[in-house]
C-alpha cells in the first residue's frame, strides 16, 4: 500500500512600498497596497480560483481523493481585503471533509529560528484564524519553507503537535527513502518528508523542455508512483499552490495533468490518498531523522542561505529581531503589527545574491530590481520603526550603530 499525501502552500507577502530616506520619520505606511492587490488578484484569476474549483470537482468525483493546504495568515488577510471569493472557495473545499488545513506561523516568518516567543505567538495566532475561517484546528505543523531541525521538532512537540513536515533532504536521509514516516531522536513526533524528486517533477520541471522526461504525462507519473508501491508507505508531494496556473501556466497542460491524476493513481488497487493527520495516525515511524542543522526546501543548498546567506540579509534579520523587546514595550498595536509583517520571510528572500544572474524562483513577484534595493528599502523602514519606538518609549534604543541612519530626524 502506498498513500499519496498532497500539501499545497498558499502564501503571498505584504510586499513593501518604495520607502526612501526622505520618508523616514514622516510616513509610516510601509506596504504597497496597490501592488499587493494586483499580484493577489492576478494569481487568484490564474491559479487560486480555477485550481480550487477543479479540486472541488475532483473530490466530488472521487471521494477517495484527499489533499491538504497551508495558508499563511497574511494571505488570508489579503483574500479578505482583495479577493473574498478565493477565501470562499477554500471554505467550500473545507466543507468536503477531504481537505486538511495545516498549521504554520501567521506571518510566514523565520521566527522559529530567531525568537521562540514570537514563534509560539504566531503559531497560536494562525491556529485561531484557521479555526475561525474553516472550523477546524490544525494538527500537523509545517514551518516556513519547510525550515526544520531537531530543535524545531522539540519546539513544535511542546506546542502539542504530533506531526510535522520537512524536506526529505539527502544529507540527512542518506540511502534511506523519504517514502516512510520518521521521528526525531528521542521523540514521538512524526515527520512527513517531502519526496522532492516527484514533487519537483510537477512543480519545477513539468514544462521544462530540456528535461529528459519532458513531457510529463499522467501515465508516466503514475508508473513512477506505482513503482514505489511495495517499498514505501507514503509519497509526500509538497509544493507551492501557485504551481498550478502561475509557475506552470495553463497552456503547459498542468490543469489537465491534475484533472487526470486521481483516476490514474486510483487505478492501482494498492494506491490511495491520505491527509497528513491521517498519515501520522495510521503509519508508524520507521526510523530516526536526526537533523542537528537547519534544513529547508529552498534552492540547491536546502538550508537557510536563501534568507540569511549574505551579510545584508543577516543584518536585516538581526536588526528586525533585535527590535523585539523595544517594540513590545510600546504596546502600540499598529506598530507591533507592522513589525510582524516585516518578519515575512519573502522580504529577506528578495535580498538574496545567490542566484543573482538567473531568472529563477527568486524573481516571482519580486518588486525589486536587485537585492541591494530590497535591503535599502527594508532598512529605511527599520530606521522609521526605531524612531517610532523611541518616540513612544521616550528612550534611545541602543545597539543599532551599524545600521542607523545618521542625521535623519
Amino acid at each position, binding site marked *: 500500500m502506498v498513500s499519496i499525501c498532497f500539501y499545497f502552500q498558499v502564501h503571498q507577502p505584504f510586499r513593501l512600498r518604495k520607502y526612501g*530616506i526622505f520618508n523616514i520619520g514622516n510616513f509610516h505606511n510601509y506596504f504597497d497596497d496597490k501592488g499587493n492587490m494586483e499580484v493577489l488578484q492576478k494569481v487568484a484569476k490564474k491559479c487560486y480560483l480555477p485550481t480550487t474549483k477543479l479540486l472541488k470537482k475532483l473530490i466530488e468525483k472521487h471521494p477517495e481523493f484527499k489533499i491538504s493546504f497551508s495558508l499563511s495568515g497574511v494571505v488570508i488577510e489579503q483574500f479578505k481585503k482583495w479577493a473574498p471569493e478565493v477565501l470562499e472557495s477554500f471554505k467550500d473545499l473545507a466543507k468536503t471533509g477531504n481537505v486538511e488545513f495545516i498549521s504554520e506561523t501567521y506571518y510566514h516568518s523565520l521566527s522559529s529560528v530567531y525568537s521562540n516567543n514570537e514563534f509560539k505567538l504566531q503559531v497560536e495566532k494562525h491556529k485561531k484564524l484557521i479555526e475561525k475561517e474553516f472550523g477546524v484546528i490544525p494538527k500537523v505543523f509545517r514551518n516556513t519553507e519547510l525550515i526544520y531541525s531537531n530543535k524545531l521538532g522539540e519546539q513544535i512537540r511542546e506546542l502539542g503537535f504530533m506531526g510535522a513536515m520537512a524536506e526529505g533532504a539527502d544529507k540527512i536521509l542518506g540511502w534511506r527513502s523519504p517514502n516512510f514516516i520518521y521521528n526525531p531522536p528521542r521523540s514521538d513526533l512524526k515527520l512527513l518528508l517531502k519526496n522532492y524528486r516527484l514533487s519537483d517533477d510537477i512543480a519545477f520541471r513539468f514544462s521544462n523542455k530540456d528535461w529528459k522526461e519532458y513531457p510529463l504525462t499522467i501515465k508516466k507519473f503514475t508508473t513512477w508512483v506505482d513503482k514505489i508501491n511495495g517499498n514505501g508507505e507514503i509519497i509526500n508531494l509538497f509544493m507551492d499552490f501557485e504551481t498550478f496556473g502561475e509557475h506552470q501556466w495553463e497552456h503547459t497542460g498542468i490543469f489537465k495533468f491534475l484533472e487526470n491524476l486521481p483516476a490514474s493513481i486510483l487505478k492501482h488497487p494498492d494506491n490511495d490518498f491520505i491527509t497528513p493527520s491521517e498519515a501520522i495516525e495510521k503509519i508508524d515511524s520507521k526510523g530516526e531523522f536526526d537533523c542537528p542543522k537547519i534544513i529547508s526546501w529552498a534552492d540547491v543548498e536546502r538550508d537557510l542561505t536563501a534568507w540569511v546567506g549574505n551579510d545584508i540579509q543577516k543584518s536585516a534579520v538581526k536588526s528586525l529581531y533585535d527590535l523585539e523587546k523595544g517594540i513590545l514595550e510600546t504596546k502600540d498595536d499598529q506598530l507591533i503589527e507592522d513589525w510582524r509583517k516585516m518578519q515575512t520571510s519573502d522580504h529577506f528572500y528578495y535580498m538574496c545574491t545567490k542566484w543573482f544572474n538567473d531568472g529563477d524562483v527568486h524573481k516571482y513577484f519580486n518588486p525589486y530590481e536587485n537585492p*541591494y534595493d530590497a535591503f535599502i528599502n527594508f532598512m529605511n523602514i527599520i530606521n522609521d520603526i526605531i524612531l517610532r519606538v523611541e518616540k513612544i518609549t521616550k528612550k534611545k534604543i541602543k545597539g543599532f550603530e551599524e545600521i542607523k541612519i545618521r542625521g535623519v530626524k
Partner: protein
Amino acid sequence: MNIYNIFLTKKGEKTTLKVLMFGWEFPPFKSGGLGTACYGLTKGLSNLGVEIKFVIPKAPYDINGEFVELVTSEKFLTSHISEIKIPSRLVPYLNDEGFKNLQPSENSGMPNYGDNLWAEVEKYALLGGEIAKKTRFDVIHAHDWMTGKAGIKAKEATGKPLVFQIHATEFDRTGGNPNPEIYAIERECFEKADRIIAVSNLTKQIVVKHYGIAPEKIDVVYNAVNMEEGSNNEEDVRPPKLAVEDKIVLFLGRVTIQKGPGYFLEAAKKISEMDPNVKFIVAGSGDMIPRMVEKTAALGLSNKVIFSGFLRGKEVDTAFKMADVYVMPSVSEPFGITPLEAMKNGTPCIISKQSGVSEVVTHALKVDFWDIDEMVNKIMGVLNYSPLHKTLSEKGFDEIMRMSWDDSAGECIKTYKRVI
C-alpha cells in the same frame, strides 16, 4: 595553441590574424576611458595570438599645453604588438573649440599641422592611408570618429575590411546637442565600416536610432578592467584636511555635461543637510569645472566639496580607496569603465541606469541620473548601512575578477571573422 591563433584565409592556408589598429595612447597618458579601453583590448587580442600594428597620434602636448613625457609601457610591447606613432595634435574628447585652445607655447617647438581640428583629422587620415599601404594586415580596426577617418582611408587604399568601434557618440558627449561636423564624420564611419562594434546595447541603440544604421551590422563587445594595476596597499591615504569620522562620496570623470556633475552636486546638497560629516570629492577636469565651482558656492557647499583636478595613475586608485562610495551620475554613458576601476579597489558604486556598464555589472546600485532623491537614498544607504557597504565591496570585487579583456578580445575576433 589557442583557438583564436589560427584561422583560414580564402586560399585555405593557415596564418595568424593581423590587425591594423588606429587607437589611442595608453594610460597613464591623459586619455580617460578611451585609452584604457584600447590598452585592455589590445592586450587581450595579443594574449589570444592576434598580431597588431598599433597606430597612435603622437601628441607631444597635453590639453593644457604642458609638456608631458609620452610613456609607453615597454613590457606591453610584445612580439605581437608593434607601434607606429604619427605626429599629431589629436587628443581624445576634443571638439573644435577645445582644439583652438590647444595652442603651443612659444618655445615648445611644436610643429603646426593645421589651423583647425578638421584639417588635423584629415591630415591624420591621409597619413593613416599611407601607413596602410606599407603594412601587411587582414583587417582594420579604428576607434571613434577622430581615428575613424584614418580607418576609412586605409580601407580605400588597401581594400581590406574596416571594423569601426564606437566608444562614445557625439550624442553622448554633448547631452543630445551634437556638433554637426562631428556627427557627419561619425555617420560616414558607420556607413563605410564593414562592421561596427558598440561598447553596449545602449550605444548600439543610439547608433541605430540617431545614425540610421541597421542593427544587424552592429556587434556589442563590452569593456573589462585591467586587473594587474590594482594595488592593495592598506596605507592611510586620507588627506589631512578630512577628519576620520568624515564619510567621502566621490565623483571621478571628466567634468562635462555627459558625466552629470550637476546632479552629483544636487545630491551633495541634500545629503549635507542631513549629515554634516559627509564630504564630496569631484575628481577630474573638463569644461564644466567653472560652472560647477560656482554652483558649489551657490549651494553653500564650498566647505563640503573638494575639487581635486585631474588624477592620473596611482592617484586614481588612491581616490577610490579613500572614498566610501563612488557615484557615476552620467547622463549618457556608452560604457563607463570607471565603476569597474572603483570595484577593483573595493569601492561600492552607484551608477547611472543610462550607462552601458549597468548592462554588465550586477553588484552595484543603479539609479536614473535625474532622480536626485533616489541617488541620495542610495548614497545614504551605502554610507550608513555598513553591511551593505561590505557586501557591495566584496561581491563587486569578485565580479570584476571574473571579467577579462581576453573575453572582450574573443568577442572582437568573432567580429573580425565576420568581415574577412
